[in-house]
């Protein structure tokens, strides 16, 4: 039983970190209409900055600075995207892939073959709650991600900014006529996605994971299925999808031995298997809306 509860807690913690990334995708999708395949490199930049700066600025200082720089980097990507001549979905997505290739090449070079620690305050300490052991970083990620996600949803629902985002996505022309500065709104979305990514990477690199390395970017790819499962563009869906994937991944890891007939390393592919299963039964995602096209 304790194994099960530990697995659920770890799964939710992992899911909450994926949710930070998936929400970032969702905001960018709603704001810019494209999938940001460069989110991985945005995230890696944040991680690298935290690693390099935490000695000088302390962990929290480093995190704030990293988040700010990552936000700027994200905005720069958005501005670059605006220069693309063809505005169709595939061209924009490919542009982000191109951006990612360059950025990741440089970031990988900087990291090299090292495995770097983010210097977080929780280290490898374990929390013991009457027999259930959970890494402190996992608890921290649940709390911090939870706060950020809640803040996001509240802002999305109750602030002027959130209303503008929703209106802009639903009817761009009407929104523009109502005085919503579409360009600025879009950039704010990218910036927020950058901040969320910087926070996410800390937890993806921290204990009990190895640390920040070249492969951390690929772990972030799992957030794509999370966003799709929930229904692209739906923040609640992104959250649900992320938690589902987090728990499934944790389950696959915990019960790996029982499932060994399917091979080892199941937790790595768990997100993708879940995605395929969901898409087979609900092609628009769990909370996605069926498209109604008007010609």
């Amino acid at each position, binding site marked *: 039983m304790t194994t099960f509860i530990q697995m659920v807690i770890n799964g939710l913690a992992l899911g909450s970190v994926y949710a930070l990334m998936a929400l970032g995708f969702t905001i960018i999708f709603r704001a810019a209409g494209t999938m940001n395949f460069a989110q991985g490199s945005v995230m890696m930049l944040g991680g690298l900055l935290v690693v390099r700066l935490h000695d000088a600025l302390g962990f929290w200082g480093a995190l704030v600075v990293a988040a700010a720089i990552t936000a700027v980097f994200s905005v720069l990507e958005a501005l670059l995207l605006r220069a693309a001549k063809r505005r169709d979905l595939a061209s924009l997505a490919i542009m982000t892939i191109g951006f990612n290739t360059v950025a990741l090449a440089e970031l990988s070079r900087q990291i090299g073959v090292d495995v770097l620690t983010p210097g977080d305050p929780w280290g490898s300490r374990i929390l013991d709650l009457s027999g259930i052991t959970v890494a402190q970083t996992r608890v921290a990620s649940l709390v911090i991600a939870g706060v950020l996600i809640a803040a996001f949803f509240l802002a999305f629902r109750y602030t002027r900014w959130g209303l503008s985002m929703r209106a802009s996505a639903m009817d761009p022309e009407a929104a523009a006529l109502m005085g919503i500065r579409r360009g600025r709104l879009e950039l704010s979305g990218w910036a927020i996605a950058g901040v969320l990514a910087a926070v996410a990477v800390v937890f993806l690199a921290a204990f009990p994971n190895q640390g920040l390395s070249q492969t951390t970017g690929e772990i972030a790819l799992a957030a794509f299925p999370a966003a799709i499962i929930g229904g692209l563009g739906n923040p609640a869906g992104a959250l649900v999808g992320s938690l589902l994937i987090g728990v499934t991944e944790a389950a696959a890891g915990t019960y790996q031995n029982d499932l060994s007939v399917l091979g080892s390393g199941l937790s790595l592919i768990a997100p993708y298997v879940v995605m395929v299963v969901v898409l087979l039964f609900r092609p628009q995602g769990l909370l996605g809306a069926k498209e109604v*096209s008007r*010609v």
Partner: protein
Amino acid sequence: MTTHRATALKADPRVPPLVVEGLTVRFAGLVALDAVSLTVVPGEIHGLIGPNGAGKSSCFNVVSGVYRAAAGSVRFGDAELTALRPDQIAARGVARTFQNIVLTRGSVAENLMLGRHSITRAGFVASALRLPSAVAEQARHRARAREIAEFVGLGAVFDAPVAMLPYGVRKRVELARALCMEPKLLLLDEPVAGMNTAERVAMSRTIEDIRAVLGISILLVEHDMGLVMRLADEVTVLDFGRRIAAGTPDQVQRDPDVIRAYLGTAHDEPEGGDA
């Protein structure tokens, strides 16, 4: 059943009637069509008019399979169209044009050949290997497409890229492409929207020619009252998703409900071709 003009309609015997009964379409709380019924007799030109938002495009979209009906039926011959996908409906001989022209990149010829899709058969293997059957089929259909282009007045621009053609000509390409499907029922969605007077007269003549030469049924949505009243054998009027009148153009023009729906513009000739 509705009464219509006594003029003998020379329909192609293969063309069945289009029978729409109790058709209801809803989107997210909005009722676009409310139990609408109409019948297009084989070989007739049937006008579908009504103020903006009356549901005319929704009606077209259901018949061509783009929208799903919440209730009611659309029968064309022995086929129940509400149960079919758009490509299946096309295979049954229903073709349509779009209000906002939807031509693909490439030349007029390529667009017309796309229209021939449902009546050609060359598959992936036959086309990839350039089997004689596929090559011959392509040549045959291209020749026919050229004939249709000339019938519609596009002979000179057959090989021109559509992107370079003026609006009025592109509307004709849209029409020609629908004709390339060798349809039994042609749905024309605002065929003269955005055209000047000379273009309207020419298009009107072409539509008459289509009916005279091919004997197919035509269901026509238009805002240009003069055109509709001149061309149509029968007119159905929609307002707020409901049918408010049906009959010959004369009958409909004098119907008080219709006049009220248009707020007295039945005798003016409002500018057609809005967005």
